[in-house]
């Protein structure tokens, strides 16, 4: 066979059995199909066909087309109500219910401890940092906050009024227990009722 008969990439040994013209037709069709797919995809992206109708999804840029700069959402405000929030689970570090914008936590000074330290909380009436924060890693109590707990904002954070970007199905353990109890009661009640009803 001639050079022509070597297939699209010059590799097609099996194609030698087919007529050259037939092969050429398939090659053209393949390239055309590829091109059409690319154009269609590009159009989809440029037109911003929404994956979901959620204004926040599918990503941070929302449904805005790639070639347009969407208007950024307003920056969320830090909640500053001074009212303690609940905790979702026992070991959750409590969130900070006030603004801490200019509170320095540096080698020079730890602003938080001016109110939350053991020696200060009576005067400030702020909650004292828990006793674990005065322990070193061998569980010895120190006079002052342990260096490993020094940087408060590693665990404790402020909350803003921003809406959650994604949903979540977290349930408090008590809710779970109650649900379980309720379903058991329900089942138990059914059984009891079944027993009590005369056959």
């Amino acid at each position: 066979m001639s050079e022509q008969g070597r297939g699209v990439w010059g590799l097609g040994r099996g194609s030698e059995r087919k007529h050259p013209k037939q092969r050429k037709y398939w090659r053209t069709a393949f390239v055309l199909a590829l091109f059409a797919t690319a154009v269609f995809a590009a159009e989809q992206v440029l037109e911003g066909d929404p994956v979901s109708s959620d204004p926040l999804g599918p990503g941070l840029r929302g449904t805005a087309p790639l070639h347009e700069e969407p208007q950024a959402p307003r920056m969320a405000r830090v909640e500053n109500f001074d009212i303690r929030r609940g905790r979702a689970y026992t070991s959750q570090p409590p969130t900070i219910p006030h603004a801490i914008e200019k509170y320095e936590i540096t080698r020079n000074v730890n602003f938080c401890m001016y109110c939350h330290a053991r020696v200060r909380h009576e005067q400030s009436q702020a909650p004292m940092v828990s006793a674990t924060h005065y322990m070193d890693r061998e569980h010895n109590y120190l006079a002052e906050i342990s260096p490993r707990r020094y940087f408060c904002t590693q665990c404790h954070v402020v909350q803003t009024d921003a809406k959650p970007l994604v949903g979540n199905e977290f349930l408090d353990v008590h809710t779970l227990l109650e649900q379980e109890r309720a379903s058991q009661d329900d089942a138990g009640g059914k059984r009891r009722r079944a027993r009590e009803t005369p056959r």
Partner: protein
Amino acid sequence: MKIKDRAREWWRTLSRPSRHLSLGFLTLGGFIGGILFWGGFNTALEATNTEEFCVSCHEMRDNTFAELRATIHYSNRSGVRATCPDCHVPHEWTHKIARKMQASKEVWGKIFGRIDTREKFLAHRLELAKHEWARLEANDSLECRNCHAYRFMDWTRQILRAVQVHSVALEGNEYTCIDCHKGIAHRLPDMEGIPMLFGAPLERDVGRNSFRRESFMSE
């Protein structure tokens, strides 16, 4: 005694009535000269009392001014802001002149480069801060109170924590703004042993000592 003779001659000239110049000329000339001198003096004084003047030195521009820019006294929702002299120079004239005379030492420091690097500035930060704290403690935080008047604070617009502290601490004139609000516009120096919040000196430096003592630095 040549100097003594010359002094005597000057005194004679000054103490006698003028021979060539009229009283009118001298009076009016003195008046106009006075205006020019006073105007020039005041203009120069005010020129040194601007933020542009302060940040014309890199010591202020790169350290204290750079820190101020991140605070509410520089940028806030209503755009009212404090410039360097609003807080650091008394507004009243006598005190202003007194502060300006003190500032001659700062000129000296500038000339001999006492804080002309970041390291030198950090090394001196505590000393410099202490000067300002002492000044504000002595004048009952006058520069704060030029804008922030206790009597006009609306408790309903303050958060609970602030109401509790302000209504107790400021009412009795026991404490003054700077007792709690150190570092309001600049970063703080090493605060070891510095009284802070409620004005009460701490028995120990809260939290920070242990950090230094126990941290990796000591190993």
